[in-house]
């Protein structure tokens, strides 16, 4: 063998560098994400209240959790909220993207308008939303002063409808972002396919239904994942808009968990609810990740 040992060492070092480069991120992730998840799962089996404590209580926190009507309400709200939020955002996002893709004059102006809500947190816009939805000073009042006396929009004060106002504000924030994702997807479609379909005599409606929308599958998937994760994390919005009210009508699992862990000094129950939330996220995400990452191989 004529080549020097030095060259060999460098080659081997080159083989290790990628792993070395990745390792800080992996280490941080293992400790700060998965370590903390395990810690949290562990806490859910302990008698922790104000601060973590390590007295083992088995499944007591879980049985307490499922006895709480509060938790039931927040789960039911999550179901309503997530279903509406994801479907409306997707529908509006896709619709706007398709419309905006028709060589619209002023697209450069409209796009940032649709997109900007994503840049703002609800700490910033919460008050404005609260005002707008408040029948006394908001939309209802404005309509009344404009002469439409019978106009009613008091959902935020109504136990049965308040969750829909949360949906409205949430849709306001993210639908523009979803629009951008679909727009990107639309712009990535080969125009020749569209021309070919038009030669085949497809109407615009059929063109979209049969040719274009099926091709946006990746955008749909990305949108679904991003939206479902935002839905599960929704927290600031509820705090800023309704504070969970009227009554407990707009409690969500995230606000439930926060309130039990931090305001009510029942960290064990909070951790139990967090564990269930994580399991839900995993149930959604793992099949998605599995299918997405397998395809890539």
């Amino acid at each position, binding site marked *: 063998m004529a080549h020097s040992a030095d060259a060999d060492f460098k080659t081997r070092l080159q083989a290790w560098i990628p792993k070395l480069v990745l390792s800080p991120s992996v280490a941080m992730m293992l400790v700060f994400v998965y370590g903390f998840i395990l810690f949290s799962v562990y806490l859910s089996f302990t008698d922790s209240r104000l601060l973590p404590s390590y007295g083992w209580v088995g499944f007591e926190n879980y049985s307490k959790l499922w006895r709480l009507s509060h938790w039931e309400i927040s789960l039911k709200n999550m179901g309503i909220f997530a279903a509406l939020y994801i479907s409306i955002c997707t529908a509006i996002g896709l619709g706007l993207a398709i419309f905006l893709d028709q060589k619209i004059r002023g697209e450069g102006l409209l796009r940032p308008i649709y997109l900007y809500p994503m840049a703002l947190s609800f700490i910033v816009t919460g008050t404005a939303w609260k005002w707008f939805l408040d*029948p006394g000073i908001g939309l209802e009042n404005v309509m009344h002063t404009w002469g439409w006396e019978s106009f009613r929009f008091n959902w935020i*004060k109504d136990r049965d409808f*308040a969750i829909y106002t949360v949906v409205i504000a949430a849709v306001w924030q993210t639908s523009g972002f979803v629009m951008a994702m679909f727009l990107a997807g639309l712009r990535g479609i080969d125009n020749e396919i569209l021309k070919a379909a038009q030669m085949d005599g497809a109407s615009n409606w059929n063109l979209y239904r049969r040719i274009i929308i099926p091709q946006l599958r990746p955008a749909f998937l990305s949108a679904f994942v991003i939206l479902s994760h935002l839905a599960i994390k929704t927290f600031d919005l509820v705090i800023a808009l309704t504070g*969970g*009210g009227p009554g407990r009508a707009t409690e969500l699992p995230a606000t439930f968990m926060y309130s039990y862990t931090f305001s009510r000094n029942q960290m064990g129950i909070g951790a139990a609810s967090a564990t269930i939330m994580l399991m839900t996220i995993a149930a959604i995400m793992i099949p998605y990740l599995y299918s997405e990452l397998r395809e890539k191989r």
Partner: protein
Amino acid sequence: MRAILKTKAAVVGALMASTTMASAGDVEVLHWWTSGGEAAALNVLKQDLEGQGIGWTDMPVAGGGGEQAMTVLRARVTAGNAPTAVQGLGFDILDWGNQGALADLNEVAAKEGWDEVVPDALKAFAKVDGKWVSAPVNVHSTNWVWANKAVLDANGIGVPTNWEEFTAALDTLKAAGITPIAHGGQAWQEATVFDAIAMSVLGPDGYKAAFIDLDEGTLGSDAMKEAFDRMAVIRANVDDNFSGRDWNLATAMVINGEAGFQMMGDWAKGEFLNAGKVPGEDFLCFRFPGTTEQVTFNADQFMMFDQGGSVSTEQAALASAILSPSFQSAFNVVKGSVPARTDVSDADFDACGKQGMKDLAAAAASGNLFGSMAHGHAAPASVKNAIYDVVTAHFNGEYDSQTAVEELVDAVSIAK
């Protein structure tokens, strides 16, 4: 573990100039008093300390009546980086004291004779195992009713002294097209109303049995059902737009004459004063009908976190400044509350303030001073919030009174 954390933090703190550990000679104060008047009053304290050569590092975290600050506090303590002094309420103080996280203020307390001037009911929240751990700033009493005098006069209503007179007054106002009760639909506000009603229905002994001793019999009693029934009456006299309303907007309704009454703690007075109203002339303050003898209170305090003795002198100085009669008077005149010590002159206080001080002293002497359930001075946070859940669900029509009583017993047992 804590000790190890602390030494480590101290060593690191010594090494790193950028760290914000309160260094000796400074106090770091975590609080949620960020609105103009409160903050200005706190500034008096700051200047007092600076006069003694003690720096003040300000750490304001507002939100949720201190909930946000408590979350931050927990993170800070877990990190081994507790602030020197932290604004605290009721059971939070006891919880931290029981964790052994608070400093011992007995020396300064003995020197200044706090035990003699602070009411026992309040001391119960400032001392843990016989040790002073926090310095009370004020006493708020929560069973006040605020009324627009002009509205009452116009409708021929006097100050009601019992439930029947009160409901009659509500009916009169309603008939006159005025919202009888200004109310903000937030859990703590509903609980504040419930506090006063429960006190009037159950009486002081029943109140103590239900909310302090958490006696299931009392919680599930017919009297409790009656209390919920009265809540329903209140609900019937509130406008449709109450949900989510901030308390100060409800107060504004009384100020503007849109509503007759508001049941709210003494901090509401500041709103009237800010609007240029004069107590006794433009607006009235009186105890909730049926609770004239009693005072339910909550008190803001500053807990002193144990820093291994490194800032004991500063903590003592801060505590001493907080409890000095001059600060107690100056601060509480602004805040609307009354001093935490009963020996402060009422000279600078207005009519409502003077009455509050008198009531407090009388209630303390007669054993009628109770911690407010709604404000975390009767039961721990978990129980308090469990009661909130039931009260607010009932108020919003989710439960009828019978269900509410049953749910109350159940919720308290889960939370205990």
